[in-house]
């Protein structure tokens, strides 16, 4: 097999537990991603409840976010290739991890891209992640914003006007939001706010990475 990440040939390991799974990455590449940290709300390493989440809670916007991995240099290289170069097959690196995410919610809602961005990139990276999870996907959010989030400062991110609108009925549903990276949490919290206004019962989130 050829590893998706390092392009080297490797021998897939065989055991009873993985006979039916197709291995796409070699072990050294796989274990180079660092697992999430301790914070119960956002997975940041260090404290059981980080400073960020404490502040969100004080403001009354508590959102349980479960990142899978930490956003280190290796993850950055991955995301650069997946998102910005558009190597969509690369998401299969996390196929098994995403399959294992327990989805008890009624709906999975990936964070959308704005119309301009979507026509530019021609795929939604969050939707790609959501498609590998087990659950019903509903694209019930729309987004209208100008500049990209990545490359902005923390203050700019937090002060931005809410770009999301709910486009279909989600009255009384429990919802799992999906995004690629959790940096300040601004995007996810803004999306959650709109969903809550539209009558969603309970909202939590899953992201691929948590920046440190």
């Amino acid at each position, binding site marked *: 097999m050829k590893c998706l990440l390092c392009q080297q040939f490797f021998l897939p390991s065989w055991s009873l537990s993985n006979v039916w799974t197709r291995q796409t990455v070699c072990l050294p590449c796989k274990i180079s991603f660092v697992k999430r940290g301790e914070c119960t709300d956002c997975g940041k390493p260090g404290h059981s409840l980080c400073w960020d989440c404490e502040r969100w809670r004080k403001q009354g916007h508590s959102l349980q976010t479960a990142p899978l991995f930490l956003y280190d240099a290796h993850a950055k290289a991955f995301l650069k290739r997946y998102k910005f170069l*558009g190597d969509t097959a690369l998401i299969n690196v996390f196929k098994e991890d995403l399959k294992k995410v327990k989805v008890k919610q009624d709906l999975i809602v990936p964070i959308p891209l704005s119309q301009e961005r979507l026509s530019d990139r021609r795929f*939604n990276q969050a*939707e790609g992640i959501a*498609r590998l999870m087990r659950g019903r996907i509903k694209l019930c959010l729309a987004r209208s914003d100008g500049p990209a989030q990545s490359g902005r400062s923390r203050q700019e991110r937090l002060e931005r006007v809410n770009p999301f609108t709910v486009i279909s009925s989600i009255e009384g549903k429990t919802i799992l939001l999906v995004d690629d990276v959790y940096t300040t949490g601004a995007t996810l919290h803004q999306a959650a706010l709109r969903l809550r206004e539209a009558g969603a019962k309970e909202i939590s989130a899953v992201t691929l990475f948590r920046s440190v």
Partner: protein
Amino acid sequence: MDIRGRLIPSEQVNISLGPYEKRVPAVTWRCQRCGAIPTRGPCTCGKRCYYCRQCLIFGKLRTCDTLVTDTRPLDPVLPSQHQPLELTDDQRRIATEIGQTIEQSGRLLVHAVCGAGKTPMLFPGIETALRLQKRVLITTPRADVVRELTLHVKRAFKEARIVSLFGGSEERLDIGDITISTTHQLIHYRSCFDVVFIDEVDAFPYSTDRTLHRYVKRVMCPAASLILLSATPSFKNKRLPTVRLMRRYHGFPLPVPQLQIPYTTNQLIEWLRRHEDKPRLVFVPTVAALSEWQERLEQAGLSSETVHAADEARIDKVERFRTTTSILVTTTILERGVTFANVQVAVVDADVSFRAAGLIQISGRVGRSADFPKGEIIFFANDRSNALYEAIHEIKRANREGFR
């Protein structure tokens, strides 16, 4: 925007070309740019959309994209003279041979030893080509070699339009009368060069990557001449006319490697101490071994620097090494295309993973300048490998042939 002789994605083209425009689908059952089998991926076009993973760094190509080219002929080539050269008789013999090949649109393999002065030998040939209105391409698999060649060629041809292409160069998608390029950058070009020189044909990755061979093939015009240059041609192709030059330009023989089997670290350190006043290169087989050896030398009180392919400060380090008398521990990236005056070279663990061609090239780093035509090259090994003896045998044979 001029895209004659090039085939590029239609998004990058911002002008309309009218009837001269020719469009081809970007990805069919194969990627039309690099030839790899594409992968299925999500796309807003709503059809079965495939994209190419192989040439992704040059920009994503999907089934719903198109490639555009301009079918008009390129501008005529302007003749240009090179600066006066001093060639030895041997070099002049090869240069006339190259010139004849260009006139007859033939093929030629130039087998010249390391330090024979391959670059100046090309200049008369290039001049002939420009006089005959032929567009010249000098291509090589290594970006470092491209940079060095560009300097040489720009110094020799003051008036000619020279374009140098490598990853991260400013002159993207440009064609000059003389184009110097890495083999990878040829991906955007189609049948536009009449004379193609390939320097270091046996270098990685050109030696193993068939795609690169195809890139070179398709940038050549129907009646193009192809001239291959190498010190260690890995193919003994009988059908390719070959000229051999087994003598260095300064007339001194190639330094023959010494063997030290088996060796201890102390012997290496002692050898390094002996050449304290000269720059010393230490070749190691792997990237992992770099820091190991650096540490060992550190313990013996010898400060050194390391360099490998993924090193960001690599160009700086090599530049610094040119002016100092220090120790540089390196992997095989410095095995070809670099010249250091009065350098002494040691290869540690020469029996592991080094090939004969690589060892010959490494030995060829020594004594390249006319001021210091002699130097020491020593192979430290714990075991005997065929490659070691092959390399020494080849070097000795070259010396015999050169001084017959």
